[in-house]
């Protein structure tokens, strides 16, 4: 579907969807608001009262906002900040497609509450390249055909960079073990291992 098919011509599908869930502030106590939401009275009113403030640095830019406490870091990136490079695969911590770095460590953004990332530094696939110059791992994935459909690729690359930084890319077996949290349904695994091995052997600081 075209991004502009919904809503007015100058509005993206995402911002249109966000506006349709716009909220009205009504004076309710938090407990009453939660009660209202859990009884499906008016979830949006309740959410407005219970929002959590968050300040987080993403790819070097600081963002300060109020969010629904239920927001995962993955949804914050994709829906609130429109950084759609990070992918939602299973949303249950089983596939690794949503892998990002929080304070330098690879984590699953789908199982991270955005509120808990308050004050953290987050790096996503969008933050890996240096301007137009691809990160060595991105270049290696292209060279070795480390993907087919490409959906798992941002998570694979974020995980691969961490795998080398952690010192867990010493052999093909070790790479396989430490990349096991990233599932590729196309089965590009041998080429992914090739790409990581090449970057590791290249010895450059990544």
């Amino acid at each position: 579907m075209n991004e502009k098919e919904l809503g007015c011509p100058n509005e993206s599908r995402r911002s249109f969807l966000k506006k349709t869930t716009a909220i009205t502030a009504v004076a309710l106590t938090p407990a009453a608001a939660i009660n209202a939401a859990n009884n499906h009275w008016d979830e949006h009113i309740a959410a407005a009262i219970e929002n959590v403030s968050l300040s987080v640095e993403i790819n070097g830019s600081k963002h300060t906002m109020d969010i629904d406490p239920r927001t995962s870091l993955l949804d914050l990136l994709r829906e609130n900040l429109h950084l759609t490079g990070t992918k939602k695969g299973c949303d249950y911590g089983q596939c690794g497609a949503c892998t990002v770095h929080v304070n330098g460590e690879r984590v699953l953004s789908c199982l991270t509450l955005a509120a808990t990332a308050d004050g953290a530094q987050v790096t996503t696939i969008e933050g890996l390249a240096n301007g137009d110059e691809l990160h060595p791992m991105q270049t290696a994935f292209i060279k070795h055909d480390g993907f087919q459909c490409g959906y798992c690729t941002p998570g694979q690359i974020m995980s691969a960079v961490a795998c080398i930084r952690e010192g867990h890319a010493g052999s093909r077996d070790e790479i396989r073990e430490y990349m096991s949290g990233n599932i590729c349904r196309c089965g590009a695994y041998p080429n992914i291992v090739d790409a990581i091995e090449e970057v590791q052997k290249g010895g450059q600081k990544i």
Partner: protein
Amino acid sequence: MNLFQYVRPAEQKSAIAAVASGPTAKFLGGGTNLLDLMKRNIMHPEKLVDITRLPLKGITRQGNTIRISALTRNTEVAEDKTILQNIPLLAMAINQGASAQIRNMATVGGNLLQRTRCPYFYDTAMPCNKREPGTGCGALEGFNRMHAIFGFSDKCIAVNPSDMNVALRALDATIVVSGPKGERKIPIADFHRLPGDTPEKDTNLDKNELITAVTIPISPFSKNSYYLKVRDRNSYAFALVSVAAALNMDGNTIKEARLAMGGVAHKPWRLTEAEKALAGKPATEENFKQAAQIAFQGAKAFKYNQFKLKLGPNAIVQALSVASGLKQV
């Protein structure tokens, strides 16, 4: 996911008070299990008390005891020099659980409280006495391939999914907890429960108690220990069966043995009788086979997990063989 209140108290005392003030409030650590269960509408706390900023991190050695603070991440434990030097079994077990990303997030306290991965517990369309007491057990007559062979009841045949817990059971860990009434220490043997008539209770931790640390005595097993995990794929899968084996050897003679299993019961399962049978014996395959046979007296399988009655003893023999140095991996 239900709506919940999110709070982040600065102190342990206020965090405990925040959980105590909400009947369904929960502590939030790494969140890798709790958020998953909330997304699936299996758990619906009214309040999450974020404890990740509390100063409950790090690994210290005090005399002959290693103390791991509860919010220490699984990766940190598995790569810690003190752990690797003194209790490598724990590092081996942790490294065979989950994925690198999840181990970076998951805490030691949270791993102790990991809930079962029984598919009937996860499927809200199915009966489950653990999820909804009184509705029945879907696994009993269902697809029970992953299920228990020891210590189950007719109310629940689920297993504890943790690898770390199996190593902690073999190493005689103690769980330090803090609650509104103060601190208490729970030996790991008494921490997790068997299902009995109350499978909804996984552990003997009170609702308002917070795990603050795990302590482990340093014992002379570091040279001869091994964690064997058998699973459907080589990595990133829950155990069909797993074995933590730790031996104190004098030459080829076993002075003392520790054996615990995962994937076989509602709690990490210690094989005390088999341990006794090994004490004072030479490390031979014959003796290992005998110990495995003793360990499996009383095991009972269901329709789809009959294979565990053979796989389990074989895994025990293999783990003991590697731990003793009889076999190389």
